[in-house]
């Protein structure tokens, strides 16, 4: 219902509906959103400038820490860029291992998202079920890499750890379990009234708008546009693995849930195929410390969509310029479009609909700002602090 007078409602940076600090200023007429102004930057850590100060080897660790969910997507993109500048290629087995890790990451990331989406619409039972099942992937990560979050599998010239033959049955067993569960969730999502009532027809993004606003990933594919970097601009071993690009033409939040659920099922098949067809051989090649002058553009289909890195080298051991554009930033203009005309009560689920990862999006300032207070720690201060 509209009242004809517009009021401004600030949403965030600290807000119960947002898990990460970000600010949106909404203009509200009655119950309807009539204006959206995003203000990002609350998580800026100055990572692009930091890239210029560190060696190519140190930067692998920095790239890993751009995001805590899609950490592997960032290192894949980074190592690919540097390999391209060096003129080396990762060995075939390493490229298959990259695919397996990337798809496991997609399952855990989409699983995390389905849980959050369920939570945003008050369906906490589904949230807990999905997150329980997601643990299967987290355990597999621990088995394969020793870590649940920052797997540190990629390195320039290949991967750091092999997938030993005795873990293959364990991965396959996990995939069988997840496939069964995902088919069940897909059924729940498409038939359960709690979900349908809150997501069907909510947060509409028409295909034309999606393209014009340069949306990426599942957000774009849920508007019926069939774009996926894995197929369009193949990297790692994706050109050798058969799989479907999932699209849906509902253009609403429900479609975004269905697309992600079906993508997880595709990921399971990709992992199975990659395990069965993984070539034998070495997993990395040695590379020099210094990188010859040049520039390159590297792209990866991260769980949230197209991730693009641009690197420029100057012949030294440190990059001249390193640019990162994460999928969330690409989806913000489309998100603003979806929110226009939405009900206030639907803001959280529409916001969650693009699977925003604000830590990924914000990378570039030099200040921690919490409650408007700013400070900068030097490396020494930071070390001192951590020793306490």
């Amino acid at each position, binding site marked *: 219902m509209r009242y004809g007078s517009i009021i401004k409602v600030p949403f965030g940076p600290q807000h119960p509906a947002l898990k990460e600090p970000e600010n949106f200023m909404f203009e509200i007429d009655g119950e309807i959103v009539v204006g959206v102004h*995003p*203000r*990002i*930057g609350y998580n*800026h850590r*100055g990572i*692009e*400038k930091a890239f210029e*100060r560190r060696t190519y080897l140190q930067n692998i660790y920095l790239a890993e820490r751009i995001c805590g969910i899609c950490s592997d997507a960032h290192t894949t993109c980074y190592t690919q860029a540097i390999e*391209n500048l060096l003129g080396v290629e990762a060995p075939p087995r390493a490229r298959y291992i990259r695919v397996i890790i990337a798809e496991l990451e997609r399952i855990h990331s989409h699983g995390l998202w389905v849980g959050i989406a369920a939570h945003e619409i008050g369906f906490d039972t589904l949230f807990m079920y999905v997150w329980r099942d997601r643990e299967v992937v987290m355990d597999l990560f621990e088995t394969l890499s020793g870590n649940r979050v920052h797997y540190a599998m990629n390195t320039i010239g290949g991967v750091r750890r092999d997938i030993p033959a005795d873990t293959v049955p364990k991965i396959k067993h996990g995939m069988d379990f997840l496939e069964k569960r995902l088919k069940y969730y897909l059924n729940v999502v498409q038939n359960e009234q709690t979900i349908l009532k809150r997501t069907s027809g909510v947060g509409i993004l028409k295909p034309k708008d999606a*393209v*014009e*606003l*340069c*949306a990426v990933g599942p957000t774009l594919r849920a508007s019926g546009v069939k*774009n*996926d*970097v894995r197929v*369009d*601009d193949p990297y790692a071993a994706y050109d050798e693995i058969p799989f479907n690009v999932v699209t849906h033409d509902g253009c609403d939040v429900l479609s975004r849930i269905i697309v992600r659920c079906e993508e997880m099922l595709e990921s399971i098949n990709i992992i199975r195929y990659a395990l069965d067809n993984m070539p034998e051989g070495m997993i990395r090649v040695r590379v020099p410390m210094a990188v010859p002058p040049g*520039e*390159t*553009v590297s*792209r990866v289909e991260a769980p949230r969509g*197209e991730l*693009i890195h*641009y690197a*420029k080298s100057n012949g030294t051991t440190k990059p*001249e*310029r390193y*640019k990162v*554009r994460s999928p969330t*930033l*690409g989806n*913000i*203009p*489309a998100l603003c479009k979806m929110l226009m005309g939405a009900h206030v009560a639907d803001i959280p689920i529409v916001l969650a609909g693009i699977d925003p990862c604000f830590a990924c999006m*914000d990378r*570039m*300032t*030099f*200040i921690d*700002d919490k409650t*408007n207070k*700013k*400070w*900068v720690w*030097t490396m020494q201060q930071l070390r001192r602090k951590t020793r306490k």
Partner: protein
Amino acid sequence: MEKENEIAEKLKKHLKNNVFEVKIPRERRIFVKIGKTALKDAVKYLVHELGFTHLSTITGADTSEEIELIYHLAYKGSIELSLKTTVPKEKPVVPTITDIIPGAVLYEREVHDLLGVAFEGHPDLSPLVLPEEWPERVYPLRKEYTLEKLRKLTESTES
């Protein structure tokens, strides 16, 4: 590489001597350097005639005398064309492309924040990523701002 060459040829024919350099380092990658005055014409031609409908991002880089702007455009999500142009550091002004690609709105604001490039005709160039209290005319991604210098500058604005 056929398609890549065809695109490069078409662009050269359309922009004539405004194209300074074309590189095709590998499959699905094109780097084109053009004059600043031809930017809007080039983007329009790429989007409307050649089907480069997706803007991946805009990169700004400090090359010490100039600021280099790189528009990363994708053809059917596949061929990534990096359209490069430079603006002088003293007067870094370039026309906006948001009227051609609405999705460029945040990328231009980001470059404006961090490198101080003014995009003429942009609807709103208010700070996007830097804090409100950030000192004016300090562009952190420019090379003259070392980390040490930035630390000093931001310390002085602290209360």
